[in-house]
């Protein structure tokens, strides 16, 4: 579904060229959940933004569903970390319906679909609420529904739950796992939270900073739904942390 091949990004700063991403390669199969994990500065968000088409790599190629990515497209939905991503002047329903509106779908039809999407994230009761009346977790759920509404094959998520409190975050992770099982989207999910990656991912792409490189790709073979307190879960977590710390010693 997604092929990232030898992708590099170099940009100019007043202090010279900086290599943000260096020959990163990974892939995501249809309906696969892939997490990009690494410390700040490892280029994971930059890589996600390039898959989203916000800017182009300076070298290498990104393909989604066989087609080379150039610019933004309706085949990819995106959810950011910042709650402010929602349009404050639109209700939850109006936000979710935005993409369908851009497609030119009639009002009644797009609102019907938008309501279904809100039901998927358990927010159908808040369809008429403006974002500032919703909690952070609810706003992120609206953002997920909005990114899914126009039915893209791929969902790109940039630390969507990082700004939430720990309890809400766990609840959101469970909900996302459900949504993913129900919709069978291909998801690329950026996080620096190891437990989150082990809970959600089929495979974890471990990245190292300065320059951003793919260090390892690990398979999480645990059955779902996963129990974060099980011995197997903690072992997976330990091995992922080992990969992350080992690279720190080397740099």
């Amino acid at each position, binding site marked *: 579904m997604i092929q990232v091949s030898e992708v590099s990004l170099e940009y100019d700063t007043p202090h010279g060229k900086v290599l943000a991403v260096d020959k990163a390669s990974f892939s995501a199969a249809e309906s696969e959940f892939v997490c990009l994990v690494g410390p700040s500065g490892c280029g994971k968000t930059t890589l996600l933004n390039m898959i989203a088409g916000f800017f182009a790599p300076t070298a290498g190629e990104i393909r989604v569903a066989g087609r080379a990515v150039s610019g*933004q497209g*309706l085949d990819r939905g*995106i959810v950011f970390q910042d709650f*402010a991503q929602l349009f404050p*002047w639109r209700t939850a329903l109006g936000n979710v319906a*935005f*993409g369908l509106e851009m*497609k030119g779908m009639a009002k009644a039809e797009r609102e019907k679909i938008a309501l279904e999407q809100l039901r998927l994230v358990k927010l159908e009761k808040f369809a008429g609420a403006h974002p*500032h009346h919703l909690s952070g977790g609810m706003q992120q759920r609206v953002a997920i529904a*909005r990114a899914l509404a126009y039915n893209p094959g791929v969902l790109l998520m940039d630390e969507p739950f990082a700004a939430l409190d720990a309890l809400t975050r766990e609840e959101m992770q469970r909900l996302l796992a459900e949504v993913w099982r129900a919709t069978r989207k291909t998801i690329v999910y950026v996080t620096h939270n190891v437990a989150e990656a082990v809970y959600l991912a089929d495979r974890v792409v471990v990245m190292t900073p300065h320059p951003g490189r793919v260090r390892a790709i690990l398979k999480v073979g645990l059955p779902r739904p996963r129990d974060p307190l099980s011995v197997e879960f903690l072992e997976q977590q330990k091995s992922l942390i080992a990969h992350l710390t080992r690279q720190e010693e080397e740099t």
Partner: protein
Amino acid sequence: MKSVLSVGIFLALYEAVARSGWFAPALVPQLSIVFSTLWTSLSDGTMGRHALNTLFRVFSGLALAAATGLVLGFLMARYRAAERFFLPLVSALMPIPSLAWAPVFILWFGLGNTATILVVFYAATFPMVINTWTGARAVNPLWLRAAGAMGANGGAMFWKVVVPGASPFIITGLRLAFQRAWIAVVGAEMLAASAFGLGWVIFDAKEFLNADVMLASLAVIGAIGFVFERLVFGSLERATVLRWGMVRSVKA
């Protein structure tokens, strides 16, 4: 309630000065006289006609200013060339008091509505330009990214994201523009209006030492300005940016 109290105290102080005998009663008339003049002019329709003339001028000028300000402001925010061209012009023209143009406009267009409306237009345009320009640049880039990812471009991006995103600034711009327009129209009418208009009434009353007429007109000017500021722009704000949580109301 508190605003009624502060107005009441102010009026009582005025009445005390008027009754003190320090000034000629023709120059500082008692409130009863001002109110009866106000009542007469309101009931026989003359004050209403003056006010309508003034309102027509102010809203013609304001409408022109809003249209110009919105177009220029958005162009300047979107295109570097427009910004480079218009910003120095705005900076150079903005500090000139709009009333200073009144004699020039009178020379070009004669006494009457055209010159008055142009003065109003001049006064109201700059807050609209500056606020629209700033508002469009202050639109959260995340909204643009999210909208772009959902297929918005060109017209849809402008009307459905940039305009509502800039609306707190635009509404404030309208408010400032109305204030400046309302101040400018009274001055412009004194100089450029040939008959009718609240400013013209005051200026005309000076010739006949009619202090009561002047004060009655001032009260009407203040009242109309207050109503528009509080009711019209206040409710516009409550219906939009306040309801959307894009600006906050202060809790008591």
